[in-house]
Structure formats: structure tokens, C-alpha cells
């Protein structure tokens, strides 16, 4: 039994060491907030650029959880985030109306682009968005949909509707609902040579394009505004009001807005600040 005791002791010691190593660095976090945001802001690299600047100024750590817009708002409804930064205006307004946030602030916008194979079998190059979506449905050209309740997914569904396409009856084999983030959906489209609606930021940062290219852009209907909201502390007492508000305030401040404008990939600006732009609500 001596040996048993000794080996038990060894196991016990290993456990204690392992546990202390695992828990020690995790607990020491003076001021950190959780921001629920979208895959587009994360995968485009914007946060990786912004957060160190914000941290430098305030010492506040921002932990970004990247989800689809719908999921991000749900996580905030459950109280699992202090701030949300998303892009689906109707869903954001509902979030405020339900009392989960007291106010929504404009932060920035970019736009959607309709991407497809260079060969463009549905012949949508350069046409308006409405016409493009109508042509895609008529040609039954392979189309990849996010299908994940994200802001981009909402925009895609709105586009079919505005083009007079009843997706419920029109959808068939050509319409691939992948239920994933922007990146995986682009990977799928790239592999299938399919059309897809993408936000410009993720598209610019995306590396596995294959023979996909931008076919439709610049239509005002492709405007993609982002809003930021502090979760209402009256709904969830765990919300870190001071730090969360500091982040919101910084994003809409001239300094934060400049930082957003200065983020570029290959010389192209990805997001356009509009916190104080006239004409936006």
C-alpha cells in the first residue's frame, strides 16, 4: 500500500500544480468588458487594430465574442455581454424597444458587395441590386446564403424581397443555405463558383477567393450601417457600465472615429465612420 500512497500523492501533486497553473492567470482581470459583435468586424481584422489603441488609452481590456448579429443580440439579452456592436438596424431597434439597451449610436458603415464567378453565368455584372437578385433567381444560378440570422443574412433576405422574388417558392438546389459565418460561406462560394452577398470588409480581408470577383457594388441599397449599444444595466446588473460606456464613447469620439477610418487593407479603407454624420438617425 506504500506504493499506492506514493503514486496517489504524485497524481495529487500533478493535479494541484495543473489546476493552479490553469486558474491563476484567468482570475486577475481588473477591468475587462465583453463585446458581442459580428464575424464581419472580427474577421476583417478591425478589432485587432482598434482594441490595442483603446487599451493604450484607458487600460480597459475588451474581449470580443464574434457571432452573427442575431446571436450577438441574443447573448446580450441573456446578459452575457456588456456592449453589442452589430449591423442589422431593424433588429437593433427592436433590441432598444424591448429595453435591453437605452440607446443606440451610429458608429460606422461599410457596404455589401455582390460577389460571383468571373464568368458570370447569370449576367449581373454592373446592374442594380434589384435586377441582379431577380436575374439570379430566374437563372437559378448557384447562390450561397449565410442562413445564420446574421446582419448580412437579413440584408440578403431583404434583397430577394425587394427584387420581388418569393424565396420560399423559388429556392431549390441552386440556393445553398450554409448556416455559417461570412468566411466559411465565402469558402463555400469559392469552391462552388457560386454567387454570394458579402460585406466588403470580410471580402477585402478574405484570401481564398478562387475566381470570385465583385460583380455588383455601389448601389445605395447595399449600405451596411453598424450600431453600438451598451446593454441596459437595469436588465442585467452584471453589466460593467463604466467601462462599457467608456468603450461606446470612445468609438463615437473623434479619436475612435479616426482610428476606424485609418484601418486599411491593401490601401483600401474598410469601414467609414459616421457617428456624427448628418442625415443618419
Amino acid at each position: 500500500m506504500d506504493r499506492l500512497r506514493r503514486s496517489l500523492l504524485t497524481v495529487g501533486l500533478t493535479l494541484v500544480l495543473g489546476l493552479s497553473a490553469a486558474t491563476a492567470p484567468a482570475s486577475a482581470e481588473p477591468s475587462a468588458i465583453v463585446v458581442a459583435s459580428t464575424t464581419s468586424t472580427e474577421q476583417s481584422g478591425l478589432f485587432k487594430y482598434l482594441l490595442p489603441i483603446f487599451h493604450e488609452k484607458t487600460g480597459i481590456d475588451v474581449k470580443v465574442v464574434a457571432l452573427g448579429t442575431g446571436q450577438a443580440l441574443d447573448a446580450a439579452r441573456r446578459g452575457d455581454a456588456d456592449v453589442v456592436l452589430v449591423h442589422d438596424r431593424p433588429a437593433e431597434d427592436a433590441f432598444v424597444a424591448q429595453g435591453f439597451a437605452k440607446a443606440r449610436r451610429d458608429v460606422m458603415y461599410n457596404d455589401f458587395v455582390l460577389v460571383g464567378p468571373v464568368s458570370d453565368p447569370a449576367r449581373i455584372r454592373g446592374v442594380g441590386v434589384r435586377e441582379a437578385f431577380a436575374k439570379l433567381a430566374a437563372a437559378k444560378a448557384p447562390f450561397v446564403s449565410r442562413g445564420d440570422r446574421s446582419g448580412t443574412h437579413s440584408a440578403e433576405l431583404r434583397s430577394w424581397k425587394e427584387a420581388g422574388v418569393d424565396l420560399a417558392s423559388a429556392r431549390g438546389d441552386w440556393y445553398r443555405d450554409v448556416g455559417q459565418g461570412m468566411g466559411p460561406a465565402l469558402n463555400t462560394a469559392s469552391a462552388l463558383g457560386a454567387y454570394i452577398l458579402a460585406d466588403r470588409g470580410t471580402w477585402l480581408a478574405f484570401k481564398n477567393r478562387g475566381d470570385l470577383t465583385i460583380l455588383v457594388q455601389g448601389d445605395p441599397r447595399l449600405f451596411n450601417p453598424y450600431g453600438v449599444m451598451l446593454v441596459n444595466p437595469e436588465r442585467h446588473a452584471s453589466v460593467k457600465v463604466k467601462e462599457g460606456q467608456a468603450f461606446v464613447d470612445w468609438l463615437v469620439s473623434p479619436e475612435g472615429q479616426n482610428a476606424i477610418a485609418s484601418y486599411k487593407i491593401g490601401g483600401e479603407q474598410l469601414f467609414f465612420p459616421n457617428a456624427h454624420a448628418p442625415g443618419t438617425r
Partner: protein
Amino acid sequence: MPILHETLSRLWTLDRDVLAIAWLSLRVSLTAVSIGLLLGIPLGALFAVARFPGRGALTGLLNAFMGLPPVIVGLVLYLVLSRSGPLGSLGLLFTPSAMIAAQATLATPLVAALTRQVVADAQVHLGEQLRSLGLSAPRQAGILIYDVRFSLVTAALAAFGRAISEIGAVLVVGGNIDGHTRTMTTAISLETQKGDLSLALALGLVLMSLVVVVNAAAALLRGHAARAYG
């Protein structure tokens, strides 16, 4: 395969971030496996030794739990740890501790089921003797565990393999937060999503190397221990 060449050249440019991510993966999975061993070994041994009604059905259930889907474990734990969930006040969601809890949940039944099998096999030889000594079930379990201790290394390695390679649970409860809860698997998934396939593959090679090193270390340790105490 141009991507192979690109992958290998990316390996040289991997920075300190990758080291931190690899370290977090190891830290989380090794801790989860330690918890799994602590809970699973006694549980599995007792299952083998003790006689109680419904034992057969429970054993079947235990074996089935080896196939627990990580994403379901992640989802259930997410709901439990969410601010709106029963343990929300602990504030554990999106922390490494939540990821440890998730992987420990996956590791424990695996260790228990494998231990039960190994101990049951050992019992064929020793059980009669132990029972004739009139030892209690826990005492019998303890002696049998000691008897099969080297075989249990395999159970530990299987649990480690399951923990370090899973993504479903850590993604949901950890949130893949840069510099905080990003592990090797969630980083590989993210780079794949961004379409940076060569970086994803390079990270995959790092992860595979980690697994090989841990397995080699376990094999060495086991050989050494077998010579010293065998």
C-alpha cells in the same frame, strides 16, 4: 502542392501569439484531463467492483457517454453559465475556466468507461481473492486501480486526445476571444474561415506536434515507471 510549401514557410513566421495560444490549449486540456482522471478513475473502478441493481444499464449509459457530442456539452454548459443561467453569478462564461469545465465533462466519462473495462479485466484474475479477503468495494477498487495503473495511461491519453482536439465545446463556452480564450482548434477554425488556409494548416501542424510530444512524454514516463516499480 504549392500550399504545402506555403504552409511550411508560414511555420517559421509563427509569432509569440501562437505560443500563447498553444500554451492555453495545453493548460486547458491538461487540467481538464487531470479532473477527468480524478473523477473518472474511482468512478470507473467502483462500477467494475460494486454490485448494485441497474448496473448493466448504467454501464451501457457510461459507455455511451464516451460519445458525448462536444457541441452539446458546450451548449448545455453555456446555458448553465450564462448570466441568465443557474450559475451565471459566477461570471465564468467566456473564460478558460469554463473551457476546462467543458472538456472535463467530456473527459470524465471517457476515463471512467475505459477504467471500468481495464479494472473489470483485472478482476477476472484477482477478484476471487479480494472478495475472499472480505474487502469492501472501495478497498477492492483501490487495489485493482493500483494493479492496472500502467494501463490507465492509455485512458489518460485518450482523454487528452479528445480534449485537445475538440472545438465544439470550447468555441461555445469560451467564445474564441483573441488573447484570452482562443485555443489551437478555434484559431485553426478562424483562419480557415478567413480563407487563410496555409496559416490554418501551419497551426494544425503545431497542434499535431503538441499531441505527439505529450504522447511521447507519457510513453517515456510509463516505461520509466514500469522499470522502477513494475
